[in-house]
């Protein structure tokens, strides 16, 4: 997989309607039904905000889209073409230009930062050897420009284990920024980020839209989602309970809705 943007066919024939679509997707872990009968789609150039309580199933949902998990039932379309579950994988998702920033740890703790940025999509020379010099170069650029860290400890060489919470998160996002994709999936990307980095992320998302790309944005900070999303999908206990265009719902309404949702069910469930 080359690291820079190739003119993949996918990119040229913009004929598809949905970059990704899920139909009646179930996901059960042992006795836990994390997702049940979920229908979910993302338009070609749409920013979808995915919100819901803790444990609602958001991360599970996007893990299916990014090829980390395989749904126990239901079907997945990418660019209106059905994907074969058995062959779908993270790597495949990358090839289909779907890029994800996960909520769970996604960096190798003992590995240097530059390896973490390029693992899976290494820059290799003619004989298939990793071009370490180049990778480090780009890594350093990303650090200073894309994220603009000012922390003491952080260089392309530094080990992830030694980084601060925000720095880690920053790396994960920088990775997604670098490998620009047609669909960018962000699972609580602003977590642990300071004011300025948060602004950077938000503008990155908007940039993606103007760049004709799509984005799934998971966020508990309703103000943030409401600001950038075109459409909001509310997930509750593994079910899609609401799917509204941005205009249809004010931030205030959204907030009270979310709270109501919570109170509504109370502690009924054990």
């Amino acid at each position: 997989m080359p690291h820079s943007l190739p003119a993949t066919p996918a990119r040229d024939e913009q004929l598809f309607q949905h970059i990704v679509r899920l139909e009646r997707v179930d996901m059960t872990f042992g006795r836990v039904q994390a997702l049940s009968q979920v229908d979910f789609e993302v338009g070609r150039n749409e920013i979808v905000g995915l919100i819901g309580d803790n444990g609602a199933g958001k991360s599970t949902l996007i893990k299916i889209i990014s090829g980390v998990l395989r749904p126990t039932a239901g079907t997945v379309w990418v660019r209106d073409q059905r994907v074969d579950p058995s062959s779908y994988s993270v790597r495949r998702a990358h090839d289909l230009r779907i890029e994800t920033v996960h909520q769970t740890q996604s960096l190798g703790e003992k590995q240097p930062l530059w390896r973490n940025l390029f693992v899976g999509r290494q820059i290799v020379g003619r004989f298939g050897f990793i071009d370490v010099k180049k990778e480090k170069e780009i890594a350093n650029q990303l650090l200073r420009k894309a994220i603009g860290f000012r922390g003491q400890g952080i260089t392309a060489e530094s080990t992830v284990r030694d980084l601060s919470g925000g720095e880690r998160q920053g790396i994960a996002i920088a990775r997604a920024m670098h490998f620009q994709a047609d669909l960018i999936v962000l699972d609580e990307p602003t977590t642990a980020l300071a004011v300025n980095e948060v602004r950077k992320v938000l503008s990155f998302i908007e940039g993606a839209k103007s760049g004709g790309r799509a984005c799934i944005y998971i966020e508990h900070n309703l103000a943030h989602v409401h600001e950038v999303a075109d459409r909001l999908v509310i997930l509750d206990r593994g079910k899609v309970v609401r799917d509204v265009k941005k205009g249809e719902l004010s931030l205030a309404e959204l907030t009270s809705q979310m709270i109501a949702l919570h109170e509504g069910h109370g502690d009924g469930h054990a």
Partner: protein
Amino acid sequence: MATRESLTARLLRIEGLPISTVLLLLVAVFMLVAPEVFLSYRIYMSFLANGAPLLVLAAGLTLLIAAGEIDLSFPSVVALSGWVLAYCIHQHEAPWLGLLLALLAGALVGFLNGVLVARVGIPSIIATLATQFLWGGITTVLSEGLSYSLSDIDELLVWKLLVGRIGPLPVQALWAVGLTAWLWLVLNRRRFGEHLLFIGDNAKVAEIVGVNTRREKTRAFVLMGVLGAFASVLLTLENQNFFNTQGAGYLLEVMAAVFIGGTSVFGGKASMVGTVAGSFIIVMVEAGIVATGVQGFWVRAVVGVVFLAAVVGHMLIEGPGKGITRVRLLRGKFGLNQGERS
């Protein structure tokens, strides 16, 4: 302070420097105590000749351990492939075919290990222990327990190419060192190696960043199998003799070499250079101690002491642990304790 720090740091960036220093110190000590032995080239030639298979095995195991896996079955590969080779030479005078089949046998064993670990999901330590028994047993059955003496194979081209002598220098040393250098590249400069490091670091993360953990693990086991077979070939040819318990003695020695070299038991970090140094320490230590005149029942105890000295020395060179934070940090940094797994 700041400069001293950064100097240490810069030195430490040279892979395996501390353990190599320990190795040199050890040689120096031996030279002092037993000059008549350690100032003659012969002993080193003997170390090179007999150390080659160990080095090949240790280098291969380093990759697996980097991926957080282990292979306990290589001693049986050394036996099995050795038999295949010896059989082909002894019964059919077909050395080249023997070489080929021996390597294939190794690959086969490795592949089975890979399937058991990466597909079926059996922890490698128990899976490969089982296959060690399995293939060791099968070797005895196949060879009917017989040893083959391959007295005059030193006429053969294979022999000359693989274990011949250039002047006093045993050719297998070149093979072993060459292979190790290549494996260093594989580990540090190839996708495969980077993937192994990430798998060893945290398999879930590896999956998330798009590494095909199963495929890479399987490949690593196959590679180990082939290397085990090659080590066996070197051993059998050099000995001009196959005996079906061969390899059994290597289990602990190879592991010791890798871990003395500073590769982490928990995967995610590995030092090929360290493994080379570790291997030579292992090959030398007992011979060296005997040469220094230690005798009888004392030898083993002294070997133990030297091991400890080596590892402790290693740590001290890496960073004089001053104050608990410092120590903690160092240990964290250089993977000398659990902390590293987190």
